[in-house]
């Protein structure tokens, strides 16, 4: 089979429609079989294993089938991926485990303000299509640092590119492997550590033998699973509740009901005006600077993340690269415009059937997820009625007979983890277990596909840019491919090991990836195409200063908050009261001794983090300042140093027009 494939590589590509059509049909048949088995009484746990096991096997099968020993296939899938399929692969590459499982939860928690993520993670594709992707495709690079090296001359811009790439991709891939561990342990009851290494195995099987080629075709398969899994539960829910199988329209009614219920809860004393954030009211969590700053940073970050840009290196032509970005956004849009519907339905369920109920009459799902530590009532995990009765009695300072204690659950008593919103939907709507299994398989597909893309981006930068281009220009093809695979495995193991330690910081640092990529790469990529006058000096200066400034803001405001605040107190948004509190807590910390000192430091550091900022900007949007600075430095330094040579300017003209051969012609076998 595989030898036939290598002999006539066109066969697979020309039959894509048939192959993936059959695959999708087969997937539905498989879901139907599981549903029948469930009716026959096969235990849920076995069904869960079948679901996850079989989908993993299919991905691994595709991964093995598409193995390759050709450099061009390994790095850019032979540049034969049609726009439509590359769009699907990019969708899977883009939508992470966190997008699949957590995005709806973020919208649940933040309401309108959470839409900054929906906007930020879609609009960036306009920048990708218009400013960058088609030109990088024409250039003919294998990696993003390849372009920087060729355009700006020499190893230093390449090295800077690799550093930025690794900074923004490594934390991200760690979070994906962590997500596979969480999903597998929650749905299958596997031990978290075991689940992480099982996930690692799944990722390696998909990517190691065939590089970009294997990752591409597994990502298409994973996209189909993830989008079906995301849409099915919410479509069923919408049909049940509103008689309309289009949740994206029917949740308008849910929004009205939520708003009405919010007013009623406040009137009945079930919610506190201060803690209840009305779902459709803007700027309750972020102020306008942070809301729009976040949108900008996420968009520009999208347009700079190497694992996304390198997907457009695989299309057969510049024209298809552009179409492919449009398809990518369409496939991503399908999930992102559905997420707010999940959030609205979940919120309505909570407001109607949880808040205002007596503790004895809470729905079952509260305890199901309470036992996993994901739902808290009155500050404790909702493990049993007795446990929450006791906690709520304490919370309202009830001192009488516990037998007489009645309590209507208030809004402020109830806390729910973001991840529950999507994973609990099948259960809340009373759907059979097969749907829950489907959601688990979808979440896993989302996490695995993103991990594959990121891992490949990192390993390719190390093997192609560092090893081949910088260390050994004469390395034979076979050795390059072996080095590429060894590095892939090493990076994967490092990421899995990091994930297995459950590093809290790494997970919150994922959001930083967007700002780091934006500040480090965007100006150099855009000006590299759109400004002939930009030269190597300018690019290097702009990258170092932009990236450095972004990193300084991120690390300074998070880890060195007090010294950051003291250096920049004149730019901080802290009110006079907050500034006074800062001085007070600092004094308390400095005068404390022994055990009290650690506690005083924690309180001081926490407060310092809330005042360590420039004009109130949160560190998730750190690139807001670094980005314009990067652009200005690049522009100014380029103007005061010699213009690029005529040869270079001709090359830029060549990059700009689709016609003609690629600039960089690698030996491909």
């Amino acid at each position, binding site marked *: 089979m595989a030898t036939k494939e290598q002999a006539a590589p066109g066969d697979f590509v020309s039959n894509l429609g048939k192959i993936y059509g059959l695959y999708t049909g087969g997937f539905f048949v498989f879901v139907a079989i599981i549903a029948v088995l469930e009716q026959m009484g096969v235990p849920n746990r076995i069904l869960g294993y079948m679901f996850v096991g079989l989908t993993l096997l299919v991905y691994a099968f595709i991964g093995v089938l598409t193995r390759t020993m050709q450099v061009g296939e390994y790095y850019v899938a032979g540049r034969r991926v049609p726009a439509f399929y590359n769009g699907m692969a990019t969708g899977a590459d883009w939508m992470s485990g966190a997008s699949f499982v957590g995005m709806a939860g973020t919208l649940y928690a933040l309401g309108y303000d959470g839409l900054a993520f929906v906007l930020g993670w879609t609009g960036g594709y306009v920048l990708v299509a218009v400013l960058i992707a088609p030109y990088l495709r024409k250039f003919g690079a294998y990696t993003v640092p390849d372009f920087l090296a060729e355009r700006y001359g020499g190893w230093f811009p390449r090295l800077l590119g690799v550093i930025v790439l690794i900074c923004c991709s490594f934390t991200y891939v760690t979070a994906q492997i962590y997500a596979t561990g969480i999903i597998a342990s929650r749905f299958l009851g596997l031990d978290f550590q075991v689940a992480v290494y099982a996930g690692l195995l799944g990722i390696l099987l998909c990517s190691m033998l065939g590089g970009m080629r294997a990752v591409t075709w597994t990502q298409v398969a994973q996209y189909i699973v993830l989008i079906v899994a995301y849409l099915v539960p919410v479509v069923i829910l919408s049909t049940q509740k509103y008689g309309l199988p289009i949740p994206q329209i029917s949740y308008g009614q849910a*929004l009205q009901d939520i708003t009405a219920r919010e007013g009623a809860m406040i009137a009945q004393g079930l919610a506190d005006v201060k803690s209840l954030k009305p779902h459709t009211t803007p700027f309750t969590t972020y102020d306008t600077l942070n809301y729009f700053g976040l949108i900008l940073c996420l968009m520009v970050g999208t347009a700079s993340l190497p694992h996304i840009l390198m997907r457009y290196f695989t299309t057969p032509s510049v024209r298809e690269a552009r179409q492919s970005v*449009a398809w990518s956004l369409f496939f991503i849009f399908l999930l992102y415009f559905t997420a707010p519907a999940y959030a609205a339905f979940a919120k309505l369920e909570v407001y109607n059937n949880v808040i205002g109920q007596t503790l004895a009459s809470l729905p079952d799902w509260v305890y199901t997820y309470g036992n996993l530590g994901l739902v808290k009532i009155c500050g404790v995990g909702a493990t049993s009625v007795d446990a929450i009765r006791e906690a709520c009695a304490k919370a309202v300072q009830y001192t009488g007979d516990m037998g007489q204690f009645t309590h209507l659950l208030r809004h402020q008593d109830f806390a729910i983890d973001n991840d529950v919103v999507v994973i609990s939907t099948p259960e809340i709507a009373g759907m059979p277990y097969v749907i829950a299994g489907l959601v688990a398989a979808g979440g896993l597909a989302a996490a695995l596909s993103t991990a594959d893309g990121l891992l490949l981006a990192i390993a390719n930068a190390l093997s192609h840019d560092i090893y081949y281009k910088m260390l050994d220009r004469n390395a034979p093809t076979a050795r390059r491919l072996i080095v590429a695979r060894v590095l892939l495995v090493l990076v994967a193991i490092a990421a899995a090991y990091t994930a297995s330690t459950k590093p809290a910081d790494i997970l919150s640092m994922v959001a930083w990836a967007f700002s780091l990529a934006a500040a480090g790469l965007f100006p150099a990529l855009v000006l590299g195409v759109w400004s002939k006058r930009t030269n190597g000096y300018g690019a290097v200066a702009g990258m170092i200063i932009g990236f450095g400034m972004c990193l300084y803001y991120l690390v300074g405001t998070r880890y060195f908050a007090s010294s950051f605040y003291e250096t920049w107190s004149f730019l901080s948004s802290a009110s006079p009261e907050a500034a006074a509190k800062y001085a007070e807590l600092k004094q308390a910390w400095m005068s404390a001794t022994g055990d009290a000192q650690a506690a005083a430091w924690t309180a001081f550091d926490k407060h310092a983090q809330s005042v360590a900022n420039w004009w109130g900007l949160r560190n998730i949007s750190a690139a807001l300042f670094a980005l314009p600075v990067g652009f200005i430095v690049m522009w100014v330094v380029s103007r005061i140093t010699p213009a690029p040579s005529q040869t270079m300017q001709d090359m830029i003209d060549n990059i700009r027009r689709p016609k003609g051969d690629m600039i960089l012609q690698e030996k491909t076998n």
Partner: protein
Amino acid sequence: MTEHHRQDEYWGRTSRLMWIMLALWLFFSFIIHFFVNALNSITILGFPLGFYMAAQGSLIAFVIMLFIFAKSQNSIDRDTGMAEEE
């Protein structure tokens, strides 16, 4: 027309399309959402309009924009003789 002229015409038209796309992007990413409070007073199918634009409206605009962009840029390529060989 010389090769040089064709390149200039091609790049001029490409740049114009780029600026149009960036202006639309700016509008749907930011400007429209400045008016969220005013738009929220209008309700369509239950959606406050300001909320709807951020949850769906702008996203739909982005998708449509990209397909139009791909098409327009293709005709610029063809008209100026810069298209790839089939």
